[in-house]
């Protein structure tokens, strides 16, 4: 059982890192990014191609992360240009359309063949309860925790964070505050793109690494973000780890494992039933 808990940390860390990124972006830009994992997958694949072509691990990784960040910024600019005044539903719908396009583009560019996403830190590992926890897993967990705590602090306690939050709710205010659109978008979207790509680079090396399977990591990540109600970074982190661990543990008995695919949904549904037990009204009066 302990084996499974520890083994579930690897996947849980991946869910957490994307879940936290989704929440950060939602709080700072007001968009639920269904393409969070796909954008990371672009970076991981570019890094993989770079290694195949002999750019060297470091440069390939830098190129991949840079591409993901740039792609994320491009999406951010598109949203800032077209949807800054739109309601949440329209922005979400547009994000879904963009995600569908990115998946199709990914198939086109990379096919669905596996790529050896480079192992960033080979060798280093710790053994816990008979399970080897790779350095990658540890790093993913650390990035996720650092992002959750760090961004939580930035958002709640710094002037920049308060400003950015105000902006995400009222884009017009942003212009009045004199924060230039490009800098703001680049900062927020670039950062989440950077985190996702870094996380993806690390986790991709021990997951079945086809483009679509990496992109579909967004489903459990969304469950994690939902557990955090798209607001609480630490809850999203805990949710991601929780989904990963419960999935892993549930493979223990075959009768449970039949229903493993439903675990993110069941956890999210339970959390929702609890958190939404009081009627809550939409923001607009």
């Amino acid at each position: 059982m302990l084996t499974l808990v520890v083994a579930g940390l690897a996947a849980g860390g991946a869910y957490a890192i994307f879940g936290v990124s989704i929440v950060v972006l939602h709080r700072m830009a007001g968009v639920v990014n269904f393409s969070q994992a796909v954008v990371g997958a672009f970076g991981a694949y570019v890094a993989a191609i770079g290694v195949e072509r002999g750019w060297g691990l470091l440069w390939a990784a830098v190129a991949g992360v840079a591409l993901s960040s740039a792609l994320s910024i491009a999406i951010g600019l598109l949203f800032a240009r077209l949807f800054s005044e739109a309601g949440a539903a329209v922005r979400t719908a547009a994000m879904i359309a963009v995600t569908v396009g990115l998946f199709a583009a990914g198939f086109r560019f990379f096919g669905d063949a596996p790529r050896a996403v480079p192992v960033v830190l080979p060798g280093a590992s710790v053994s816990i309860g008979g399970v080897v926890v790779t350095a990658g897993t540890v790093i993913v967990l650390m990035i996720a925790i650092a992002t959750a705590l760090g961004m939580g602090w930035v958002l709640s306690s710094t002037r920049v964070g308060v400003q950015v939050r105000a902006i995400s709710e009222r884009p017009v205010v942003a212009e009045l505050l004199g924060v230039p659109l490009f800098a703001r978008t680049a900062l927020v979207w670039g950062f989440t793109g950077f985190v996702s790509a870094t996380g993806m680079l690390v986790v991709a090396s021990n997951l079945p690494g086809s483009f679509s399977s990496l992109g579909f990591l967004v489903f459990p990540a969304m469950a994690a973000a939902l557990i955090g109600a798209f607001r609480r970074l630490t809850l999203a982190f805990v949710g991601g780890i929780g989904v990963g661990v419960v999935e892993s543990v549930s493979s223990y008995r075959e009768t449970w494992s039949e229903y493993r695919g439903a675990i993110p949904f069941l956890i999210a549904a339970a959390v929702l039933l609890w958190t939404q037990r009081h009627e809550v009204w939409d923001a607009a009066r």
Partner: protein
Amino acid sequence: MRHNLRSRLRASLAAALALILLATSCSDDEDSSPAQQEAPATDASETPEPAEEPAEPDDDVQDEAPDDSAAVEPDDVEGAVPSEDSDGDEVDDVPAETTPAVADGTPIRVGNVSSLTGAGLFPEASVAAKAVFDRVNASGGIGGRPIELIIEDDGGTPEGAATAGRKLVEQDNVVAMVGSASVLECAVNSAYYAEQGVYSIQGTGVDPLCFLSSNISPVNTGPFAGITVSLYYASETLALDRVCNINLFVIPDLAPAFDGAVARWESLTGKSLTFRVKAATLEDDPTPLMLQARDAGCEAVVIDGVEPHALAVGRAIDAQDLRDIVWIGLTSYYTDAIASQLGSAGNGLRANSEFEPYGSGSPVLDDWKDLMNSAGVPLTSFAQGGYLAATIFVEALRSIDGEITRESVAGAVLSLEPYETPLLGTPYTFGPGEAHAPNQASKFVELRDGRWVTAADDWVILPG
């Protein structure tokens, strides 16, 4: 306001253009699955074009009987694949023996439904089949009639497969399907083929209906018999006691057939699995399942999945130090891309090969290799499937006396003699049965320092 709208429009149009341009231009160098090997000619997006060029306005196949009289000694042309009764040397003189003639009759239209775009690509089988037909056409075709292979992409989607099948049968009026390679084409089209009296010599069958249909007979072993034969290899050939199974290949419709594959091994051997577990999703991390297998005391684990799983499994074996167990992957693991990407980290990982292992260097592969190399087709297991399907189909065509129509081809397929070739462990058959799964054998390959080598030269053949 107006300005705002216009700039929005401009921005979106620019984005649209950029996306489309990128999409159409990118595939030249990045679409190839085994990246370093694939020649540009196999680009998925280009393959349908050459196939369609010889199309002629007259697509009625029925009125072609007179042309047959002009056929030059059809019986003299041997099948290009070495049959059991002919030794390997004969392969080389086949082209010489054939009377070079131009096949300028009305083309015999043959269909192929393959996954060329979307998730899970199989681009080699169709081009390999086409290479076989092109060689036949270059030496006079079938009684002066060239074979035209029309390749349709199903995009890996049921709608795409249904549309492709119907287009080939109804628009293009093909006489048969040859060398198709798709993850779900049989599931979608098998009933339709039965209805239309169309027969398919499947190059790569994956979904269960490929092996359960009256009108489809795949040349490959497939994932289900693949699991059974791998378990059989572990328990009988390797004589290991504690045999286990991990099911990672979680895509719609497959689960019951995998259960059936395990049940079949149990009834063949009278043994039962020490441990069995299924992944929840295709994108699951296999590590927890593999650790459980270790904890359950497995000596051999048959582990399925698609090509990407091979990487994850190989890396987990290395990272978690699980080399004490014999890990046997499905034939989907057996690709050069996996070998080179795992390198020595993958040492010991085994997989079943549904045909004579393509990298084995055995002389029985010479004709296939020459043909693939000259046509620029990468040497993969899928290319073997396409090549075999096309070769068997040519054999069936040559057996037809008289008109070549959908009906006569059906007759030829149904009365096909068991086709023996050293590329297959069991003879290929079709015939009138309700279900066909002729390939019940595999050889096993093992990863050593970034290369797949044949683990043992004997076929493992499932009994009766």
